[in-house]
């Protein structure tokens, strides 16, 4: 019942072009990216979007490739919505929201070909690098999706992994002292647009998420879209869908610029 009242108030404000935190409809919250704080990880990033905080860490291990991609490294994305981050999160294995988030981010990384997985092959069919990207929510104030996606990307961009070689006996030798960057090809950026009533707004905060009808998350690379995920229990018209994507495309360009500046990439 309470969400209904909250929703009505928010709709009133939105009709005057106002968001709860004073932002314009297409404004991102302030972005903070802090990389390399986790010494034991090959790469890591803590990302804040407003009060939402997520951390991503990258670990590597040597494994066997999948049978149908014998010459490609393996990428695994996992997300945990920890009870530390929100009174509504509970301990236990990832729920459908955490799983969806991890899978959407995984598809974004994979389809953008951010990492050249072929370069992570050590011995075709036998040994490849496995890249584990683990995402932990630390404070949930809405839009964990974009915050987490950005943390994953920043952690990968700043990762340094050991060198692995095959010796004459065909054994894999890992040199932990010699480290190198991951083979990065591009930077995918994920943007979520929420629909409340007939308004579309970018980077929803928690109050907005709770009353929103539907969300459209899209990942962009080189101005093209490489993943879309419509979420929420309402529908969108075709026109609204395309409008969402155009807004998201613009914001992705903006966020990409910030990432490049902060990380010093390119």
């Amino acid at each position: 019942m309470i969400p209904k009242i909250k929703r009505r108030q928010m709709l009133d404000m939105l009709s005057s072009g106002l968001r709860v935190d004073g932002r314009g409809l297409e404004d991102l919250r302030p972005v903070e990216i802090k990389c390399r704080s986790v010494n034991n990880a090959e790469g890591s990033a803590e990302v804040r979007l407003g009060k939402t905080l997520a951390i991503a860490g990258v670990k590597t291990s040597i494994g066997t490739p999948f049978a149908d991609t014998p010459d490609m490294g393996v990428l695994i994305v996992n997300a945990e919505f920890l009870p530390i981050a929100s009174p509504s999160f509970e301990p236990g294995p990832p729920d459908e929201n955490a799983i969806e988030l991890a899978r959407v981010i995984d598809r974004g990384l994979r389809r953008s070909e951010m990492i050249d997985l072929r370069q992570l092959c050590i011995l075709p069919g036998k040994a490849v690098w496995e890249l584990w990207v683990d995402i932990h929510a630390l404070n949930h104030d809405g839009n964990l999706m974009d915050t987490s996606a950005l943390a994953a990307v920043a952690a990968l961009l700043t990762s340094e992994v050991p060198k692995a070689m095959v010796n004459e006996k065909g054994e894999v030798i890992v040199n932990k002292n010699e480290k190198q960057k991951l083979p990065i090809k591009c930077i995918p950026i994920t943007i979520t647009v929420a629909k409340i009533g007939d308004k579309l707004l970018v980077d929803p905060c928690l109050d907005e998420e709770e009353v929103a009808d539907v969300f459209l998350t899209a990942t962009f690379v080189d101005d093209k879209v490489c993943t879309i995920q419509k979420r929420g229990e309402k529908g969108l018209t075709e026109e609204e869908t395309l409008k969402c994507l155009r807004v998201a495309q613009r914001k992705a360009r903006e966020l990409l610029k910030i990432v490049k500046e902060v990380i010093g990439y390119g």
Partner: protein
Amino acid sequence: MLNTKNKKIVLIDSDGRRVDGRRPDEMRDIKIKVGILENADGSAYVEQGNTKIYAAVYGPREVHPRHLALPDRAIVRCRYHMTPFSVEERKSPAPTRREIELSKVIREALTPAIVVEQFPFSSIDVFVEVINADGSTRCASIVAASVALASAGIPMRDLVAACSIGKVDSVLVLDVTDIEDKYGEVDLPFAMMPNRGEITLLQLDGVLRLEELEKAISMATKACKEIYEKQKKALKEKYVELRKAIIEGGKT
């Protein structure tokens, strides 16, 4: 044309035909049978090429566990599940991360069409079982579940139709098969309420320019309208059959 594992797999031949002989904008045959699982309040079986799916609806019914019940609407729950033998390599019967995500997006594709406000404190449970998987299983699941919901007598704003769009050998294609999904460039599952013109499922896995995406949505919208007619036809046939049964039952 994609070069995988040193084998070139041609997905569109020189005549513009796909691996199974279809044109890019051609759907596979769809069979829809209504009401074959007697315990369920509504059910449907959908066969789309070699994709074969049972859907059953239980509800509106009391919610278990009770604390999940809502005072102003029914909750909708959905379980998309694949039998271990429905795929090439046997899968464990325990739900995978993929099945958990798909259960969520299917639920979110169906819910907009259900008049949930009519059933406070209740649940409407949708169970989908994939018997054989040959691409587009989530779309076929939505088609089946939507018919099952209607056949359960649950008030709906519209039926939900669904289909997938792919991009293979640089061509947009309708109704993606397993091989096209595996070796193609793009998979775009899509669902809508054709009468209301609302998209209720949209996922993209693969790179597209926004103009291509627009084109893909147009293709999908057109196909959903065709499927919609088939869904209605299947439901009508069932009612005719039922009425006939009732009349004949009256004779004895």
